């Protein structure tokens, strides 16, 4: 995942420098793909992997809801307790 953050890469490139075999990397990518964290496409004879933004949708939704609620609580406080300081 760290490697894919800078852009799409083929499997061989992803496996380079990792202390696991290339089949292990492929297996890992299948799980990531199942979880919709990465997606792939064929480019020529190679398969290129990239981060799948859909996989992060629920995390985004969580923070979206959280910050929406938090900002409203902040607004209520900042407006409701104005004690004339500043």
């Amino acid at each position: 995942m760290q490697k894919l953050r800078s852009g799409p890469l083929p499997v061989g490139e992803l496996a380079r420098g990792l202390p696991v075999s290339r089949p292990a990397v492929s297996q890992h990518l299948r799980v990531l793909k199942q979880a919709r964290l990465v997606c792939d496409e064929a480019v020529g004879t190679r398969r290129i992997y990239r981060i799948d933004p859909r996989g992060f949708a629920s995390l985004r939704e969580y923070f979206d809801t959280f910050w929406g609620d938090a900002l409203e609580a902040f607004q209520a406080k900042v407006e409701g307790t104005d004690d004339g300081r500043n």
Partner: protein
Amino acid sequence: MAETEVTQPVQGAGGAGREEVKPVRKSIRVRADAGRAFRMFTEEMDSWWPRTHHIGRSPMKRVVVEGRPGGAIYTDQEDGSACPWASVLAWEPPHRFVMAWQINAAWQYEPDLGKCSEVEVRFTPADDGTTLVELEHRELARHGGGGARMRADVSSDGGWSSVLALFAARAELAA
């Protein structure tokens, strides 16, 4: 009401540059000047922070923001422990504040800033005495596999959890 920016789909692999998970962006206008809004948001965060949101093992007593670059952000818990969960990356009162969101996949403190998302808050005063508060939670992909497990935790869809647990174990192997 806090407003949500309409998000656009991220384009495919054709373009150069970084793959992105769109940041979460929210804004709200408050009837207060920028100085007060900044102070309330940061050093007085305890006055509005949702009590349900902490990573301690016992109930939280208060949230503390150390108002300086590199300052710690933590909660004090009822059992006497302190739980760091963020730190100040930029401290520019009364206009801008950035913090690292240091909570990892297992809802534990993440010391490595390279694996943390960021929350930037900007305070823009208007002539009518109000302040526009704009929040951006970005670099969510830095949570990597962690984001996936977090997602499993925050999602009620149990079906994903087993896949994600498997993924998380794999991600740790490959890390």
